[in-house]
């Protein structure tokens, strides 16, 4: 069927894009690997030397690195289940027939948080969560809760990051799951609703199998994006107070950009990338086997 296309033609069509991605994606990555094998600090460039895997050994035994990883994992383990639970609820409500106009409006408003510039989310968080002038504390006051020092207290700052992560990404999860729900054949769904009144049974035995691909997509992307998470905590707290919100990407930025230790930062970044790819493949293997 397919036309016989000469090799030259294929190269002409694909070449420029591939060359561009090699230039901006692969070349810097290789350079990062090379630098990660060096003791390389911007302020002491003369002392730069090849040290084999010393940086990796240092990073892998560095409690600061693992604490940042632990923080990132904690954020993921708290906020993603909440995002999935709330997102599923929203998706189910939007999936029900009726109130079409209001549902369209709700869907449009769901699009806004995830498009918002992540840095602006951090700024908004600062303004809205301020202990004295913040509107969130005013609202908490209406239901009798004393003002909370969100930004200045380590635990509260962490909670603040979780809250804003949930605000920004629950809509995303909801819309992905909604797309998944729409793949359930309507006749099967109708037949099931006639059989039982329990929304839970329909969800568990009829809709869930169709939701697995969406859930896998959510898990993979939320994992990758949580590991990438930089803009929002950086803007809101600069990783502080202390290192309470120093997630892995924030830590790497600090080591490379504020301590100028590019060799070490590169080693950290490469390890993070390896973990990301490992997790993505694990999800695919684990969950897709369940479906098939």
């Amino acid at each position, binding site marked *: 069927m397919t036309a016989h296309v000469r090799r030259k033609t294929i190269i002409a*069509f694909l070449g420029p894009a591939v060359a*561009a991605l090699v230039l901006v994606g692969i070349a810097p990555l290789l350079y990062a690997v090379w630098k990660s094998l060096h003791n390389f600090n911007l302020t002491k460039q003369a002392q730069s030397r090849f040290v084999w895997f010393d940086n990796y050994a240092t990073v892998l035994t560095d409690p600061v690195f693992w604490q940042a990883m632990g923080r990132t994992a904690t954020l993921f383990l708290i906020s993603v289940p909440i995002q999935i639970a709330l997102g599923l609820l929203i998706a189910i*409500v939007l999936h029900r027939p009726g109130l079409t106009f209001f549902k369209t409006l*709700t869907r449009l408003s769901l699009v806004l948080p995830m498009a918002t510039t992540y840095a602006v989310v951090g700024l908004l968080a600062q*303004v809205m969560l301020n202990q004295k*002038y913040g509107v969130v504390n005013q609202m908490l006051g209406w239901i009798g809760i004393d003002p909370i020092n969100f930004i200045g207290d380590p635990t509260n700052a962490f909670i603040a990051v979780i809250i804003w992560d949930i605000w920004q990404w629950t809509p995303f999860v909801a819309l992905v799951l909604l797309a998944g729900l729409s793949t359930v054949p309507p006749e099967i769904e109708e037949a099931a609703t006639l059989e039982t009144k329990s929304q839970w049974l329909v969800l568990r035995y009829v809709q869930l199998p169709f939701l697995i691909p969406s859930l896998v*997509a959510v898990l993979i992307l939320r994992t990758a994006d949580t590991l990438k998470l930089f803009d929002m905590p950086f*803007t809101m707290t600069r990783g502080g107070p202390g290192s309470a919100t120093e997630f892995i990407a924030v830590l*790497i930025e600090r080591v490379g950009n504020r301590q100028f230790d590019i060799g070490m930062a590169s080693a950290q970044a490469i390890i993070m990338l390896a973990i990301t790819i490992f997790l993505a493949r694990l999800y695919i293997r684990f969950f897709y086997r369940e479906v098939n």
Partner: protein
Amino acid sequence: MAAPVQRRALWAEGLLLLAIALFCIFPFYWMVTTSLKTQVVALESPPVWTFTPTLANYWEVLFEDKVGASLINSIIVAVCTTTLAVVLGTPAAYALARFEFRGKQDLWFWFITNRFVSPVVLAFPVFLISRELGLRDTHLALILMYLTFTLPIVIWICTDQFRSIPRELDEAALLEGASQWRIFRSICLPLAMPGVAVSSILSFIFSWNELLFAYILAPKAAKTAPAMAITFMEGYDVPYGKIMATSTLIVIPVLIFALIASKHLVRGLTMGAVK
């Protein structure tokens, strides 16, 4: 008996929808109203909900604090990288949709992995390289680096689009003696315009929002708007109104684009995993 119950359920559902929408929109409402407050009003405790609005903050940030210049930088970078991604990406997408060749799957997988690479991995090597080449603090450095996410988006969405165009069109043109390039250029590309438009909007949004590359690679002359916005937090006296005015200026264009492409935003964020 059934009717009142159903009506009550409908009310409950309506209220739930309203709550969801309010939860999403309220921060924007607060952002815009704060941007219209003077510093004195913004620092009222507890915060006030009614006040006399002023545009002074916008005036100040745009013309005194160089936010205007940074917005222009953002526009230049986002428009150029999007254009470049479309120019490079549409032929590649066409090839992936139409041609069979060895290693196609691997190429796909490689494109997908770009979605997982954190900018923090690439930022430092690129910082060193751009310093060597004299590209630090230029639009070009950002335009090129943003290709790491804009190009895959264009390729994904346009490949889908090209696949949906009937092959008979190509084959008919091929019999007429048209070259592959001509078929792509004159027949398929015009038909794929919806995909090109969607992927352009998404590329624009993602480039516009980017902070890490901008923060590390463009500290002064080429500084983009998000990088400019965060500098306001560095002083002792935090100018709330000005920060929110800058935020509003940054966010309004992406929100408009996001609403235009609302059906496709999720598709872009999941890189085609969800239709």
